[in-house]
């Protein structure tokens, strides 16, 4: 039995694909730019998606421990659940737990003094002696937060909070006024320093303060925590300690590893918000557009060479040969367009990073994904284009 394609034929297919690609390079410039453009779109799209996905767990990544304790029905940061601090007693008592850092999270409204405009801002309430977030550890100004009403401001917040930063940098301090309908008295928040964390799709800015300050602003009990971060003793196995704690802690609490919580948040984000779907759709559309350009290009190629291909066919070259020629041609164009797309995406990243406050830099993983997806698109299109050849009538050669 003869194999569908012998090596010599495959080599000839490669030569043909390669030569017909560069011999008509100038004529296919338009389609080539189209392919590169579509791939750029996909890359940028994926960059935003990854940046948003990552930003959703930005605070999680800062937590200073291996385990977290949350309320039994905790669903993630979107709808914050809470529990009573007293429930943590057993965690303090566990020999493998080195430290327990409480964390209180909530969004509040602040009013800009000049424009009187309202904006929401996320408050991260910590124990200044036992900070639950890494960026607060070892900073002198974390100690300043012990005084009520003192806060630190996130320099990477979106520029929605008036000229707070300018004033802070000029005078060393600035202030914000809370504007909460639910509390009788508004609080003056005195900004005494800044840190860098970054915005997310839902959170435009953050303030760091003591849990006491946050409880005061909200008129909420100091005993109601969002989560507690457990730092384990050296050598302790997080999964094992988590299992042991699960048995010890009250039924209203739940303990999980930090990795589990991050995975939970990302899953929530991808599955329960339309954003994941929208991005998947946009990526898909980018690839389809890329496919259309390749299709166009292969179509032109077939139209130009139809008789010549038919001559090859009646000489004995089979469908597998033509499929290979078209696949390789599609791959060559895609491979040539990729570096251009990567370059364009990198340039776009530099520009977009400044305005989105999101970290959209290119990663190898994303480039590999686009390479694979682009290759897949090229393969599908090449295979489809091969079908067009079948309709050609050899008698038309005469």
């Amino acid at each position, binding site marked *: 039995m003869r194999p569908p394609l012998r090596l010599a034929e495959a080599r000839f297919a490669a030569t043909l694909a390669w030569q017909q690609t560069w011999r008509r390079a100038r004529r296919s410039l338009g389609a080539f730019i189209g392919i590169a453009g579509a791939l750029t779109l996909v890359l940028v799209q994926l960059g935003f998606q990854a940046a948003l996905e990552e930003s959703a767990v930005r605070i999680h990544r800062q937590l200073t421990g291996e385990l977290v304790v949350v309320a039994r029905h905790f669903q993630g940061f979107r709808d914050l659940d809470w529990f009573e601090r007293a429930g943590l007693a057993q965690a303090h008592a566990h020999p493998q737990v080195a430290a327990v850092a409480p964390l209180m999270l909530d969004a509040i409204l602040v009013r800009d003094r000049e424009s009187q405009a309202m904006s929401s801002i996320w408050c991260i309430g910590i124990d200044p002696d036992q900070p639950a977030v890494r960026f607060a550890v070892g900073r002198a100004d974390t100690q300043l937060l012990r005084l009520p009403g003192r806060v630190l401001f996130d320099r990477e917040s979106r520029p929605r909070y008036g000229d707070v930063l300018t004033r802070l940098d000029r005078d060393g301090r600035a202030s914000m006024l809370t504007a909460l309908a639910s509390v009788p008295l508004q609080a003056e928040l005195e900004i005494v320093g800044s840190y860098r964390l970054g915005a997310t799709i839902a959170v435009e800015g953050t303030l760091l303060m003591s849990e006491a300050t946050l409880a005061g602003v909200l008129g909420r009990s100091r005993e109601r925590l969002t989560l507690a971060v457990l730092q384990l003793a050296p050598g302790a196995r997080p999964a094992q300690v988590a299992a042991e704690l699960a048995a010890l802690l009250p039924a209203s609490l739940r303990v999980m590893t930090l990795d589990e919580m991050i995975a939970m948040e990302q899953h929530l984000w991808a599955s329960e918000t339309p954003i994941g779907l929208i991005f998947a759709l946009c990526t898909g559309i980018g690839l389809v557009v890329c496919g259309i350009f390749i299709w166009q290009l292969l179509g032109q190629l077939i139209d130009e060479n139809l008789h010549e291909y038919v001559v*090859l066919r009646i000489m*004995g070259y089979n469908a597998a040969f033509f499929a290979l020629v078209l696949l390789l041609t599609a791959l060559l164009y895609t491979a040539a367009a990729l570096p251009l797309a990567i370059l364009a995406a990198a340039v776009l990243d530099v520009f977009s990073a400044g305005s989105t406050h999101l970290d959209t830099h290119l990663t190898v993983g994303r480039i590999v994904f686009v390479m694979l997806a682009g290759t897949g698109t090229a393969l599908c299109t090449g295979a489809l284009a091969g079908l067009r050849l079948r309709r050609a009538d050899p*008698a038309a050669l005469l």
Partner: protein
Amino acid sequence: MPRILNIQGLSFGYRAGAAPVLHNISLQLNKGEILILSGPSGSGKSTLISLIGLLRQAPPGSINLFGADLGTADRATQLALRQRLRCIFQRHYLLHSLTALQNVAAGQHFQSRPGLADPAALLAALGLGDKLGRWPEELSGGEQQRVAVARALVSAPELLLADEPTASLDYENARLVVDGIAAQAARLGCGVILATHDERIMDVGTRRVEMRDGRLLPG
């Protein structure tokens, strides 16, 4: 002389019900023969070539090629038969993105009788030894057609079908093409049917038949 082709009482029409284009044609071809198929335009030369060359489905029971009936042969048999013959046309149909040598080498992968022809040697024998690396558009019409001849013959076919291969060439180039065909066909022991109404080149044939309105003229 072994028989390559035996046509008996072939009639063919393009559409059922319409008047046939070929009427009761009987024709034989032996190994080594060069048959000139002449006749005015529209007499049915190309139609006959397309049926013999398996470019069109032949009616059953009338064309026997290499011992097989073309009208009833299954797909695999048809493919196998196609490997043993080659066609050249009025236009050269060379791939623009391949050099002369590469175009000829493309014909080499399906050799009817392996080892008989080498692309470069064949091109040299056809007077193109110094133009192996040229792109088709860098060759004259006659040179292009000789490359097409080389591509057809490099597989050492047992039958070469040529439909008006010199129609767009001047006399000198036409001469080079048909003389090349004749010399190589003789070397390879390949039967040739050359359809043409070009009186200038008919002398290359070992035999000549004339078509008129879909019929072979007697004699």
